[in-house]
């Protein structure tokens, strides 16, 4: 009898520890980035790091560590991706949730899932061999590896997230809302635009936030398809280099323990905080939504 009790306690303790491990992991990731990144500022001034536009850590004599151009680049490709993915994603979600017959819905959902499962490196590859040349030809550019190319590919990568989360939100709108609207003589389209979508608004915002998070954090696609020119971009036809691409390119070559090495953790921390912020907004919006519903 006593053995049983001890075993139960032990089992509980084991599961408790595994449950708590995710908190430890998230804290660990943050602290690792923070403390390694902080060492950058032994050699680099805070203001030069955040507001400098020139990133050239391997320059002879006077290396520079300005991250502004890559932050702007990251925002730019993300913005471009969202301009494409938000209308397309919400439109598709509305179609699946509200218009498609059950049979079509059951076919579309696995298709979205398969799209979500395509490795980012394969999308990046198609950016080089298929979309990049197409972009170059369409706009008469010498190379198609630019921010526009990256934006379109990132849109493809964030579409599944936006579609599936938005669709859940739209389907969660109570039936009575729609029925009341129909009873008042509203058409299908009017009901969707005036009743269903506004009721699902917070869920849709959350889906967009998660999509943005996906786009900001994506590495391989932008690394392969945006050309990686390290300068302040002036438009979508410029080649850009994002935060993620910079880490991917430079971490392999940098000597351990140098200012350059720590600077890569510092930009990793910036990246972490950006995606953390985006997720937090999604979380707050969803929490508010749940409150509103009860």
């Amino acid at each position, binding site marked *: 009898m006593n053995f*049983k009790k001890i075993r*139960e306690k032990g*089992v509980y303790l*084991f*599961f408790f520890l*595994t*449950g*708590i*491990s*995710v*908190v430890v992991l998230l804290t660990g*990731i943050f602290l*690792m980035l923070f403390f*390694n990144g902080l060492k950058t500022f032994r050699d680099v001034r805070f203001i030069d790091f955040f507001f400098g536009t020139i990133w050239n850590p391997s320059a002879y004599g006077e290396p520079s560590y300005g991250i502004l151009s890559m932050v702007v680049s990251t925002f730019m490709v993300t913005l471009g991706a969202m301009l494409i993915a938000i209308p*397309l994603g919400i*439109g*598709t979600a509305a*179609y*699946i949730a*509200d*218009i498609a017959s059950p049979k079509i819905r059951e076919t*579309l959902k696995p*298709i*979205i899932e*398969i799209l979500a*499962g*395509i*490795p*980012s*490196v*394969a999308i*990046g*590859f*198609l950016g*080089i*061999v298929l979309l990049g040349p197409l972009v170059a030809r369409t706009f008469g550019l010498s190379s198609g590896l630019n921010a526009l190319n990256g934006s379109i590919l990132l849109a*493809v990568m964030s579409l599944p997230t936006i*579609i599936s989360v938005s669709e859940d939100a739209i389907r969660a709108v109570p039936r009575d809302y729609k029925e009341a609207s129909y009873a008042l003589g509203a*058409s*299908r*389209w009017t009901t*969707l635009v005036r009743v269903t979508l506004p009721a699902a608004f917070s869920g849709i915002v959350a889906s967009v936030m*998660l999509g943005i*998070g996906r786009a900001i*954090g994506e*590495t*391989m696609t932008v690394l*392969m398809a945006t050309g990686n020119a390290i300068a302040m971009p002036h438009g979508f036809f410029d080649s850009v280099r994002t935060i*993620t691409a910079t*880490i*991917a390119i430079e971490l*392999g070559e940098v000597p*351990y323990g140098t200012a350059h090495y720590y600077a*890569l953790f510092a930009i*990793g921390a910036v*990246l*972490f905080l950006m995606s*953390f912020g985006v*997720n*937090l907004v999604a979380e707050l919006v969803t929490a508010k939504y749940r409150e509103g519903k009860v």
Partner: protein
Amino acid sequence: MRLKRFREIFGIGLLSLSAVIVVLILCVIIFDITTKGSGVVSWEFLVDFPKEGMTRGGIFPAIIGTIFVTIITTIFSIPLGVSAAIYLSEYAKEGRLTRLIRTSIRNLAGVPSIVYGLFGVVLFVQGLHFGTSVLSAGLTLGLLTLPWIIATSEEALKTVPQSYREGALALGATKWQSIYSNVLPYALPGILTGSILGLSRAAGETAPILFTGVAFFLPKLPGSVFDQFMALPYHLYILSTQHHAIEQVRPLAYGTALVLVALVFMMNLTAIILRYKLRKKF
């Protein structure tokens, strides 16, 4: 009245069009990779080593490397993830700590994969002295898939009716006995589905393994978990951007892309079919 009718048709047409575009995107991806890759993929391509500076030959070590690292990921992340899910679904009471755990899981799911790579370098490669190896890379990918596995496993556990648990408890079983005999067996297919989907993501990831163990080229297969390895996604990355004769190896890159996408696709399909059968059963 006519304007209204027009708006109705136009609006709904627009929504249908966006769905069509999304399906077309997937079709273009699959079509391009399949048509240009299928000419390259042969039995020799699958079982040969790369030859002559990777300009000829096959991708055998990359396939084996990807399978090897995914096995390490599985061994690490499934037991840990399922246990955490059991804690959340069976033991945890709603409260601040549980909320903190759930928030952490959602945030971990949003952490960029390259950040997992940085963490893997500091913790596994340097901290635990595993070096750049299959083990380091597998563990890094394991951390990456953890939030996914926890979330899907918890969902699977939640679908098991409460009466199953109560039935066991009423017969005098302890909590653990009831979970072990009456809950886990019924949640198993759901857990499996989620895990396969999570692992298929891990198998296709590149960024987390860049600095934790993947190698440009190796003349032989990894002999232990402490060796470096070649992997399909990284091989595709090299062939399409880092190779000295990029145009010449383009067909090989297409072949690699096809094998990678097919591998991930088959894992996804297994999971989707499994889930479909499951839904019919309940």
